[in-house]
């Protein structure tokens, strides 16, 4: 056996070019597998983070009707002022950060140009910054302060309307009593956050501003909660108990998972899709390995014939070739792992910028257009083992086929 192993390794070093080319093919497949998996994993996790950090918080408290119709942002099924105050106290008692928000649909226009629909959220800037991360993504001007009479718009809105900081935007909307309202608001800040839903659809004004102009009378359409450790359940249970004990039975809670159920369902489908993608990459890698290994074995049928003519047993010949294939797989997998790690390091720190290629295209993920990577040691190990196993498995059949030939035919084989 020792001699067979030595012979296999000698073969590897003897056919340097072939060894390198075959290993590179395996390495390329393995690296691609590691890189793609890391990117898809990042996109999935980043989408969930962005949903919580920019769109929803960990959970919200709202009326039951509002929970059913949240996509329409109705102003007639909201939490009235006394209940808002009670819920804010509940948030304090449960150690959560909370932010009352009132969302409403508006048509925004600039210089009597075309109007674009947006959802405007009336927020308390100080409280909102503790729940959401919009404040950390201001790229021009300032975040709102409590008495600000301006509006915070997204970089997307700036581009679409052709408006800039310090200029005035017209917001047409309805008040709580369905009365038409139009306000001329100064753009005081521009944000660019990694959640495309928020970037493309949402703008922000202060609650004070909304109170004075939209007949809101202290109401809020939802109160967003953020738990300190990021875990929903313990805080959610406490909030539910306190809501019941304070007889706030008309109010309900909705978690980010419930709100994002559509997205999460798509995400699950995407995971399935990602698995298919990974599987296809596996297949491509496997076909590559099969191809190079088969060629490498059939190229050496004469050599096998010679070994058999010199008295080497068929099984030993097969073993020798399998060990050689395992060696090739090992070299390819090590190289692939190294390349995959390098690509992942680049992906984690720099990322791939798809901005120019996909501009306003909807990826279906709640991420920006720069795609990063996430470490996935499990997949790295799996890819490494797969590289070796695949090489071994695909070398068995052609080796067996080659040794079935007559020695004389093998020697004459072209």
């Amino acid at each position, binding site marked *: 056996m020792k001699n067979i192993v030595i012979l296999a390794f000698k073969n590897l070093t003897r056919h340097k070019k072939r060894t390198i080319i075959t290993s590179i093919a395996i390495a390329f497949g393995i690296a691609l597998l590691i890189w793609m998996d890391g990117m898809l994993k990042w996109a999935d996790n980043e989408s969930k983070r962005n949903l919580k950090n920019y769109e929803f918080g960990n959970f919200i408290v709202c009326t039951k009707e509002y929970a059913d119709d949240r996509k329409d942002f109705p102003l007639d099924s909201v939490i009235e002022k006394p209940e808002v105050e009670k819920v804010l106290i509940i948030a304090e008692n449960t150690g959560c950060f909370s932010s009352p928000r009132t969302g409403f649909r508006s048509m925004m226009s600039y210089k009597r140009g075309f109007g674009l629909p947006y959802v405007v959220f009336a927020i308390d800037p100080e409280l909102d910054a503790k729940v959401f991360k919009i404040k950390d993504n201001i790229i021009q001007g300032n975040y709102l302060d409590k008495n600000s009479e301006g509006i915070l718009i997204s970089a997307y809105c700036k581009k679409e309307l052709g408006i800039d900081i310090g200029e005035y935007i017209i917001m*047409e909307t309805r008040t709580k009593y369905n009365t*038409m309202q139009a306000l001329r608001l100064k753009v005081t800040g521009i944000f660019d956050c990694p959640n495309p839903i928020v970037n493309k659809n949402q703008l922000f004004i202060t609650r004070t501003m909304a109170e004075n*102009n939209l007949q809101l009378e202290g109401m809020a359409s939802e109160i967003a909660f953020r738990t300190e450790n990021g875990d929903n359940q313990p805080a959610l249970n406490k909030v539910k108990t306190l809501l019941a004990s304070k007889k706030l039975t008309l109010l309900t809670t909705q978690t980010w998972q419930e709100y994002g159920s559509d997205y999460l369902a798509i995400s699950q489908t995407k995971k399935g899709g990602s698995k298919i993608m990974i599987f296809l990459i596996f297949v491509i890698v496997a076909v590559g390995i099969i191809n190079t290994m088969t060629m490498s074995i059939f190229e050496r049928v004469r050599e096998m014939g010679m070994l058999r003519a010199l008295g080497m047993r068929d099984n030993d010949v097969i073993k020798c070739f399998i060990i050689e294939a395992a060696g090739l797989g090992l070299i390819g997998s090590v190289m692939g792992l190294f390349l995959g790690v390098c690509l992942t390091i680049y992906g984690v720190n720099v990322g791939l910028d798809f901005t120019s290629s996909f501009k306003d295209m909807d990826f279906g993920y709640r991420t920006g257009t720069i795609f990063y990577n996430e470490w996935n040691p499990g997949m790295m190990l799996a890819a490494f083992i797969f590289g070796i196993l695949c090489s071994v498995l695909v070398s068995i059949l052609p080796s067996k086929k080659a040794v079935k030939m007559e020695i004389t035919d093998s020697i004459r084989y072209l």
Partner: protein
Amino acid sequence: MKKQITALMKTLTATLMATFLISAQALAITPEGILSKADDNSIYQSIKYIGTMTINKGTRKKPRIKTFNAIARGNDKAYIEFTNPGDRGTKYLKLGDELWVKGAYAERADKISGHKLRESMMGSDYSYEDSMDNEKLIDKYNPALTGSENIGNKECYILELNAKVKKITYSRLIMWVDKEQFVPLKIQYFALSGMLLKEMVVQEVKTIKGKYFPVKVKMEDKQREGSYTLFEMESVVLDEPVNESVFSKKNLEK
């Protein structure tokens, strides 16, 4: 001679009385009275007409033309079926506060609710709410007579209407009402902030069943440059009985 004097006296008395009555009537004109008369011209029990909307959107070179058949009863029920090539078969049904729409190729009707009711109807400068409103203004606004002005060659009262109910689409209107026919020839619609949003100008009025009824109206969006909709009505039939089955979902989904 005596007879002649008596006749002259009678004529003078009659003239004086007529002058007095006319002056008294003129003096008795109140903003509420003007608005009520304007309402009488605009409000109908039922209506049936063939409508055309010519939609101009500033940046668009070609105006879009939508034609439709409309039937309505009171303020609760209305049925519209579009007939222009691009929208043929699209139908709307208003039942109370509900509005249903069925696309040309859709199998079932969808309910339009909430914010969608406030959106533009078929891309025009009318919202669904605007286009289906048939309520008396006197019930919703407090009018004030602020002056008079000519619209074209017609002398008009200028009425300022401020909402007297909380739940209302426009908090303030300014209305130019024809002094002779009591038809609102121009209406400006304001936001709660006082910003002018829309302006409606009547371009043609027809006498139908004793009513002076506007049949050609231009609605201009004052916040969008060059955006206006010309709304024309033909073959208008007012206050005739309407078959109830028209206002059914079954008819909509037919």
